[in-house]
Structures are given as C-alpha cells and as structure tokens.
C-alpha cells in the first residue's frame, strides 16, 4: 500500500487539477480524495510526500528502440527501461527493428519475457508490418497481436510500397490495431543526412527536403481514407506533414501523430559536424518547429514520443555522414517539454501532461486516467527542480544526446508502475 499525499494531481481524462491524496493498493488505485479525507484504511501505507510536486497518470512513450534482441552493445531491455523509468515513463512501445526483426510471435514473446525481469516499466512491443520489415509480405500480425503487440510499423523506413501499405492497413483494420508509419519517400531522402536548407548547403551535407516526409504522409492519409484504418504518423517533423494530418482529422479519419522533443527544441540551424545532431527525420526548419508547437498546443498533435534511439559510441563517433541516425531521449523528454512548451507559455501544464498520457493512450485505443480501480501507474514530477543533464550518468548504455550538460528547470521525481515505485530521484 502506498499513499501519495499532498500532490497537485493533474488528470487530463477527467480534467482534474486539484490537491489530492492518492492511495494505491496492490497494482490498482484504491482511492483519490482531498488531502486528509481518504476513507480507506491506510495506516499501514508507505507514505510519499508529494508536496510541491505534480502527480500525473503514468507517462507512455509510443516510440522507443530498446535494441534487444541483437544490438545489446547499444541498449538492452533492462538498461533501456531503467533509463525510461528515470525519465518518468511507466510504459514504452518498442519498435520492431531489432535483430531479428520482431515480425513473429516468438520474438514478441522473447521481448515480453525479458521485460518481466527488467526494472518494471511496462514494455509494449510494436510488431513489424511486413516480414523482416522488408516490404514484401505481410508479417504475422494476428499471431503477434495475440502475443502482445500494440501496433505495427516498419519503423526505420516506411512500409515499402503503397500497395502493401494498403494491404497492411486493411488487415490491421480488421484486427483493430493501429498502423504506425515512418513517413519517408526513400528516393527523395536517398543519401541525405540532414534537412535540406541553407545550413545543409553551408556545411556541404546532403539534405532531404521536407517533402521527403510530407508526400508520404499525404499518400498514407489517402490510404487511411480508402481503408478506414487507424494511421499513426511517427516522429512528424514538417509543417507540410502536419497540414496533412489536420486535413485528415477534419475529414474524420482515424489519423494521429506524434512529435519528438528534439524536433520541437532544435532546428537544422543547430546542426554541427557532430553526429549527436543526426537523426531521422532530421532536425527541421525554424518554421516547422513553430508549426509543431502550434500543433502540440491546439490538438493537431496527439502525443510526445521520444524516438529513443541509442547507438554505442563506436557507431556514433565517426564522420557525420557515416554515423547512424538517432539520439537517446528518455531522460530529457519531460524537462525539454517543460522548457520549450510550458515555461515558455505555449502550452498549459495539463495539455503537456495529456501529450504524455491520455494522448498516446488514445492512439493505442486504451484508457489512461486516475480513478479507483485503474492500474496504479503514476508519474510524479517537479516543474521547478533545477538540474543539469549528465548523459554519462544514464543507466542506458549509449551516450548520444545533444542535450548533455544542458541545464533544466523541472524533472521527473518518481515513477510508479502497478503500485510499485520503480524509480525515485
């Protein structure tokens, strides 16, 4: 039994913003009540004093790479989830581009087995859309769903052809599971290592235009309309792509999208010859970032997701154009969101919490709320705690973050999954 007392409880599902005590019993929430007014017997409960802190539903990260099986020198399910817990995440959706690819139920079960002995963060695997993510044949989606996947994606690349995308969408509609698309026209993006623009021209680095993303989003939106499928656009980075998502939402299509903290924080002008600034989609233009923040504020964007992409130093410490794409993201996601969105006055704290909780839950078609009987998954954080990020102290295995040594105001304080405190700062 755990009593979280005196916290400011923010629950987007019920629009609650109040000082409440929360009593957790077993794996569930037992009761919420005004401070000191709990009716359940709690004299044996362990007490966590949340005075001055925010108590929110457990954060969900829709887009992470845990690298296991196959690339354990960069990350494992154990180290990745410890980093996630430190970042305040209670559940993470891991992409299938492991070695082997998670394109069948046995890999899915392996991941879930490994997660059981890890730190306690819920691991929700995403299955491959096509066999080996090769874009030729549809993967065993029904069997993987039975084993526990929550969505399908060929992330790292788009589902190869429009025809296969249509087929996957139709199949996933019948299975009621979302299709998460890494939207990229691979011919427009071929060989590119950053966004095309003045900075790429100055640095002599090959750029991809915004259209490399948005033409694929436009195609997928039309296929979502054709099939009635649930389409979720991963790591959306371009203004033109967001306009496609807005258009889809206006038409009542089941189209959602996520944005990463690095895309609403950094822009292409920040890129240096340092592979910690290399990710895909690449850092976008100033006007794209502005459009993303507007979309995060007004509801066009459904979730903040990290695209946590660990790569061991041996892979990243090379020439810019030879380095793999991606950065780690768990431990800076909340702090960057507070810095860029809340402290800056662009989003309310409630809206930011929604983007980490009920927003991603809706994408997956699940509930996320603070109420008696609900799973006791909570994220407790401070909006004022000052700290600086030191990536070398991360429990994760990789160090590829452009935010190393950045100073923040606001941090995750405690992460609770199924009634158990799995991380406490």
């Amino acid at each position: 039994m755990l009593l979280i007392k005196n916290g400011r409880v923010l629950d987007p599902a019920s629009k609650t913003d109040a000082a409440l005590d929360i009593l957790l019993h077993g794996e569930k929430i037992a009761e919420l009540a005004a401070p000191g007014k709990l009716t359940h017997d709690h004299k044996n409960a362990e007490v966590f004093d949340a005075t001055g802190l925010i108590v929110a539903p457990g954060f969900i990260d829709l887009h992470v790479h845990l690298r296991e099986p196959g690339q354990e020198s960069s990350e494992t399910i154990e180290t990745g989830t410890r980093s996630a817990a430190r970042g305040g995440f209670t559940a993470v959706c891991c992409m299938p581009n492991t070695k082997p690819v998670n394109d069948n139920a046995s890999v899915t079960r392996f991941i879930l087995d490994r997660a059981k002995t890890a730190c306690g963060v819920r691991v929700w695997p995403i299955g491959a859309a096509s066999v080996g993510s090769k874009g030729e044949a549809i993967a065993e989606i029904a069997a993987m769903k039975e084993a526990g996947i929550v969505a399908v994606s060929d992330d790292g690349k788009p589902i190869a052809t429009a025809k296969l995308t249509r087929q996957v969408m139709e199949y996933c509609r019948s299975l009621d599971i979302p299709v998460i698309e890494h939207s990229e026209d691979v011919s427009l993006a071929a060989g590119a290592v950053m966004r095309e623009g003045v900075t790429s021209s100055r640095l002599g680095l090959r750029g991809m235009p915004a259209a490399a993303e948005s033409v694929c989003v436009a195609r997928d939106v039309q296929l979502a309309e054709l099939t009635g499928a649930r389409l979720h656009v991963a790591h959306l980075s371009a203004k033109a792509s967001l306009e496609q998502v807005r258009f889809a939402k206006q038409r009542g299509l089941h189209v959602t999208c996520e944005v990463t903290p690095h895309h609403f924080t950094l822009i292409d002008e920040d890129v240096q010859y340092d592979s910690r600034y290399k990710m895909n989609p690449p850092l976008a233009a100033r006007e794209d970032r502005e459009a993303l923040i507007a979309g995060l504020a007004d509801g066009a964007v459904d979730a903040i997701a990290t695209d946590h992409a660990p790569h061991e130093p041996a892979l990243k410490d090379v020439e810019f154009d030879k380095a793999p794409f991606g950065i780690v993201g768990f431990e800076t996601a909340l702090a960057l969101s507070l810095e860029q969105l809340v402290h800056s006055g662009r989003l309310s704290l409630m809206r930011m919490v929604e983007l980490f909780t009920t927003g991603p839950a809706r994408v997956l078609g699940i509930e996320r709320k603070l109420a008696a009987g609900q799973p006791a998954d909570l994220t407790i954080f401070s909006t004022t705690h000052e700290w600086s990020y030191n990536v070398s102290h991360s429990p994760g295995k990789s160090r590829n973050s452009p935010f190393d040594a950045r100073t923040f105001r606001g941090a995750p304080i405690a992460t609770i999954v199924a009634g158990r405190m799995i991380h406490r700062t």
Partner: protein
Amino acid sequence: MTFRLRDLLALEPLTADELTFLLDQSQPFQTIQRNPLKKLATLRGKTVALAFFENSTRTRISFGTAASRLGADTMNLQAEASSLKKGESLLDTVQTLNAMKPDCLVMRHASSGAADFVARHLDIPVINAGDGTHEHPSQGLLDALTIRDRLGKIDNLNVTILGDLQHSRVARSNIHLLGKFGCRFTLCGPAMWVPKELEKIGAPGVSIRRVFKLEEALEDADVVLVLRVQTERMHEPSISNEDYVLGYQLNAERLRRAKPNALVLHPGPMNRGSEITPEVADGPQSCVLEQVTNGIAVRMALLYLLISGGPEDVPSEPQAAPKEEPQPQRNRRSTDKKDLSHASD
C-alpha cells in the same frame, strides 16, 4: 594584428583581417618559388603527416612540396594503402598517425566535416585539404592570392562561378573568402546544381545571386571561376556532356561578355573541351598555372604558421622571407596525447 591559427578547417569563420594576414604571409613564399634554390630550413626536424583519404594528385603533391621546401619531412597515408580498407575507423587511423608524432596533419576526406571531427580529437594542428562538399580552404586562399596578384585587389569584384556549385567545396571557400571583401557572386549552372539555398550561405550582406543563362552570368564579371563537373559526387543522373557544353561551356565568344581583363580560374583538374575550351584555358586571361604555383606558396605559409606558430605581430607590410633558423617555439601545444598506450620508448 596578432592572429594565431590552431587549425585551418574552413575559411567561413575567418575575418577579412585574418584572411588578409594569411594572404600577406604567403607573399614571401611566392618569391621563393622563383629562386633557383627553393629549399628553406624553417621547419627542419618537423614532420607533416599527409593523410589523403580521397584521391588527390595536385593537392597532395602541392602540400608535400610545400613541406619539403620548408625543410620538413612528410609521412604519407593514402586511402588505397591505409587500414581503412581493413575496417579501421577514421579516428583510430588518425590517432595511430598522431602517435608517430607528426607536427601537423594535412587531411583530405570525402565526408564533409571530417577534418573538423578529427581536429576535435587531436592536439596537433589540422589543415583541411578538402572535406567532401564543404570547404577547401587552401584552394580559396590560392585563388584569392592569384586574383590579388593580377588585379591588385580582391575588393568589390564581380565573381562568376560556373558549374556544379552544389557539390563544390572550392566554390564555398571562395565565397567565404571573397565575400568578406565585398565581392558579389553570380552562380551559374543547371538549376539542380545551383540550389537556391546557396544564395544565403555567405555572411550577412554578401550578395549572391543565381543566373541560369551563362551569357547573362558573365556580364560585367571581373573573375570567372570555372568548376569541374564532379560526376563522382552525383547522387542523381547527371545531364549529358553535350547538354552541358551547349549551355555552360566557357568559350572565347562567351568570355567576351565579361570585362576585357576578366580573369579565368579553374581549380583543376580541367576537362578541356567540356567545361572550358582549350582556347580559354590557354589564353591570356587564364590563371590556371599561376594558381598551381601560388598553391605551394599558400601551403608553405600555412604549414609555417601552424607549425612554428608564426610571427608574434604582423606588420601591415608584407613580411620578409622567413629566416632560415628554426623559429622559437611559442605557445605550442604538446603533441603528447592522453593515449600514451601508443607511445614507444
């Protein structure tokens, strides 16, 4: 002014004063090229590592000759012979070279930013001899020196750059150097080789415009820089040589659109009959061979400045040729790196 270079990775961050200083420092070394005995002892006992991870003939020979005329020894690493082919990382390769204790690393690499990346990891001066499609600083300097010799100045000139701008590190270095002196640039070539973003790569206020018609681009030009068509850097199908010749080859008739004494520069190697006609390449306006000679002077100056530390104060007048004694060592950074595991003795 006092100006001490740590590395020379790009011309973009240098100021007009710093660039003038580098050009002035090259002048005494130009004189030496005309002497019957060209060898100095300025860098006797020093070693210059030449690491060319991308094929190069003229730049490698030019740096090697510059080093030897200063009395320095060279160690050569060429991509074909290197262990990169055996899977060694760039960082491991240059750290191995560094452990052999050179006093300076001159490197060329096909990846933009490779010299920048290496310089962050080494404690010896690094000279970028061309990185991908980013910059080729010594080429920019030798071009400016050549223009200054012929026209007496590099200020406020109309410079037309012709060809594959997108993939040209020579064009970028020229824009970053000459742009600091008020030169105006006209970039000309097929539109897919001249992306509009190039108009904004200069420092604020630098005038860069795109013109797709060659005759128009040459109007009023003081300098015409002809680039080689770089098929090896193309990621997309190139246009045919016939089409290129039709639209963009610099021939005598077209050159008449430029100012009468306009200079023609080419970084080499030239494809005669492709981007330039032999008549223009060998004509009185061509500076192609002077560029090559000046390349050695510029590179001698760079090696001298980076290895010896150069003069404390630079008078506005050009320096006399450096004395033949070894220069006093001031503010030299140690060549001893943290990874002493490689050190012998």
